[in-house]
């Protein structure tokens, strides 16, 4: 098992701490995804993100053919407060070990 001396991850939230001031990917409930720069967080995963791109996946059903059409709606938000309870997954940019 490799132990990183500097900036090691001893508890899960350390990974988030190491991602401060980096652009992160956040997967949210209801098929929403966020990409933005992480400014602050707390133990609930409430977060402040800036320059956020939100992607919302919408599934529409074609009435005639019963085909499911998946549309991605994107919008940009300058500054965003995210409530932690909606968060499913957070992925930082690839760390150089």
């Amino acid at each position, binding site marked *: *098992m490799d132990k990183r001396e500097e900036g090691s*991850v*001893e*508890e*899960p*939230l*350390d*990974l*988030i701490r190491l991602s401060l001031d980096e652009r992160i*990917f956040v997967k949210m*409930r209801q098929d929403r995804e966020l990409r933005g720069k992480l400014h602050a967080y707390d133990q609930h*995963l409430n977060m402040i993100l800036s320059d956020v791109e939100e992607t919302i996946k919408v599934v529409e059903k074609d009435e005639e053919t019963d085909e499911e059409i998946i549309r991605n709606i994107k919008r940009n938000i300058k500054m965003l407060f995210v409530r*932690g*309870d909606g*968060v*499913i*997954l*957070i*992925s*930082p*940019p*690839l*760390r150089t070990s």
Partner: protein
Amino acid sequence: MTTSNTSNNSNAQFNFFKMCIGRPVVVKLNNGVEYRGILEVVDGNMNIVMEQTEEYLNGQLKTKYGDCFLRGNNVLYISAQPRK
């Protein structure tokens, strides 16, 4: 052997997590999505950090993440995997 109290249980839980660290695991979330990767660390809230994570939906590979953090409240189970 049959005696079990809360401290024993949490100890067993802790031992299980310790045993799994650095090994491949499957984590299933309440929304049905599965994550396969190397378990890095877990905490009491079942927040999980994994490496080389692959996201599976209905058995199909959807995405890969280098490192990923899963918020504990979404976790349905953590399952130890034999090495492939």
